[in-house]
């Protein structure tokens, strides 16, 4: 597949990279993008909620159910061996994607939410006690708040929240102030889903490690946009969801350092996570299977593997550069609209653009844009504390993927005129 082509001239206000990204060619890989919505071409700008799937991912899932379907790890027959190979192949791809040192460190989970809950319930309940402190930030998704609140209630630990500034950037000095000998865990988003802020996680991890505190990184919004190297970051846990990475829903990966995963008790009991069961005692399986009770989402693991292959072919560096171009172009264009305020103006941002328009609720913006064929998210983005921080009940959020185009941003801006027309502001 060729996705790169030479470009001879670049139009103004659109910084073309040396070798441009062939978006038109890439879009052909995503069958859903060709459809019309309410009679208009679909403009899908809700990628931070879930990304669309390329044909290769759809084919991999269909192939599995058509010719490979079988349970894994237990059959001696042909199909079971084939299914096991395909599923474990997905794990190897995930391990390489994160640059984990072995597949013992890549646990398949349902998604980021389950990954965080696993760490909270397994690591947290084993190693945290009354009076201990857990640090999170003010820009976390509910899935990186609630599991820790539940843990705090269970063990008597306390949740500490690092505040953010008005641009939506983490206040590192405040974080430094909160770290102390009672801190037993730090959990932070790599990229904020509501604001787009890219956090300085390498620095956050270093600072936590100076207190011997392990760090969980919620990578749900980062993995689709930038290369992640868990060994370089030296994070202790890293979690991401397959469906935001152009893969299926219901599958994600929890990376954990082997020594930590070894020390942790199982999360759930059942088949596959054991090596020997008697009524007197059960011996748990080796990593990563100790954390994978029951028949897993086999098609999901295979589909995620196909998604990782696809993303690798596109190249996250080139994709990220294209998305940055889109973000800058859209930021400029939307900022020019009277009464529009962008929420989340950090210097380091991924392709998430949250905004509010004076006098018009985001929900109404969402409905009007929908009628123009444009899909955005309107609401609190499962980050209600972020909304409270910025004094808004909700925002409208456009989030870009590498298959989005400058023309789609233009369509968004044009549709905002329609919003203003309807509301007569």
């Amino acid at each position, binding site marked *: 597949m060729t996705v790169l082509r030479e470009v001879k001239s670049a139009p103004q206000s659109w910084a073309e990279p040396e070798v441009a990204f062939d978006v038109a060619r890439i879009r052909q890989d995503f069958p859903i993008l060709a459809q019309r919505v*309410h*009679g208009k071409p679909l403009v899908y700008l809700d990628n931070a909620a879930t990304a669309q799937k390329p044909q290769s991912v759809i084919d991999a899932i269909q192939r599995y159910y058509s010719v490979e379907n079988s349970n894994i790890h237990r059959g001696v027959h042909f199909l079971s061996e084939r299914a096991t190979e395909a599923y474990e192949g997905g794990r190897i791809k995930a391990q390489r994607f994160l640059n984990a040192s072995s597949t013992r460190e890549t646990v398949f989970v349902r998604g980021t939410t389950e990954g965080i809950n696993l760490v909270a319930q397994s690591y947290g309940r084993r190693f945290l006690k009354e009076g201990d402190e857990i640090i999170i930030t003010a820009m976390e998704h509910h899935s990186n708040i609630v599991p820790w609140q539940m843990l705090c209630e269970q063990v008597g630990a306390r949740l500490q929240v690092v505040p953010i500034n008005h641009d939506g950037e983490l206040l590192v000095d405040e974080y430094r102030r909160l770290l102390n000998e009672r801190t037993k865990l730090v959990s932070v988003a790599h990229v904020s889903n509501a604001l787009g802020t890219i956090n300085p996680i390498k620095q956050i991890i270093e600072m936590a490690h100076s207190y011997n505190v392990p760090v969980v990184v919620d990578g749900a919004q980062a993995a689709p946009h930038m290369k992640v190297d868990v060994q370089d970051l030296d994070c202790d846990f890293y979690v991401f969801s397959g469906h935001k990475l152009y893969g299926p829903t219901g599958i994600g990966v929890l990376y954990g350092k082997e020594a930590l995963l070894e020390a942790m008790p199982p999360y759930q009991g059942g088949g596959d996570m054991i090596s020997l069961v008697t009524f007197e005692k059960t011996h748990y399986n080796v990593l990563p299977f100790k954390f994978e009770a029951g028949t897993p989402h086999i098609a999901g693991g295979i589909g995620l593997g196909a998604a990782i292959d696809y993303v690798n072919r596109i190249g996250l560096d080139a994709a990220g550069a294209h998305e940055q171009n889109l973000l800058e172009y859209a930021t400029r264009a939307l900022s020019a609209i009277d009464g529009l305020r962008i929420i989340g103006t950090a210097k380091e941002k991924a392709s998430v653009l949250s905004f509010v328009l004076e006098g*018009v*609720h*985001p*929900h*109404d913006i969402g*409905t*009007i844009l929908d*009628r123009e064929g444009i899909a955005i998210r*309107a*609401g*609190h983005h499962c980050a*209600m504390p972020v*909304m409270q921080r910025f004094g808004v*009940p*909700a925002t409208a959020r456009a989030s870009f993927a590498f298959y989005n185009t400058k023309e789609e941003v233009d369509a968004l801006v044009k549709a905002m005129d329609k919003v203003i027309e*309807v*509301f*007569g502001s």
Partner: protein
Amino acid sequence: MTDLTDLYQEVILDHNRSPRNFKKLEDANRTADGYNPLCGDHFTLYLKVEDGVIRDIGFQGAGCAISKASSSIMTASLIGKSVAYAEALFDRVHKMLTGGSSATADAEELGKLAVLSGVANFPARVKCASLSWHTLRAALKDEQGVTSTE
């Protein structure tokens, strides 16, 4: 295809811009909070009920045009009406919003409330329009806590 103007009718836009009874009732004897966790709409409804009659009504909070206009029109329709009337109106509006009744048949009976009938064609917005009505029912039943559309 359903047009946007079926949803954002002039009456709705007007109530959104200048909501009626948008006030806190200091002498309210029934209040309830309505909350839509999907989009963050949040209203507090205040009622002064005496001898089975709604003497005064007000609301405050923030929400989209549909939830705000629906709340505003609702309060305007209920001042001076009996609790029994309000409860019957809840049923009719609920039916209209969920497409269970013909808008034209009900138009006369529902008066200004009929402008909300367009919402039935926008399933994602039905909860916005019904939020204040569920809150009303909770307030009339004097239920404690927050009414949620979820």
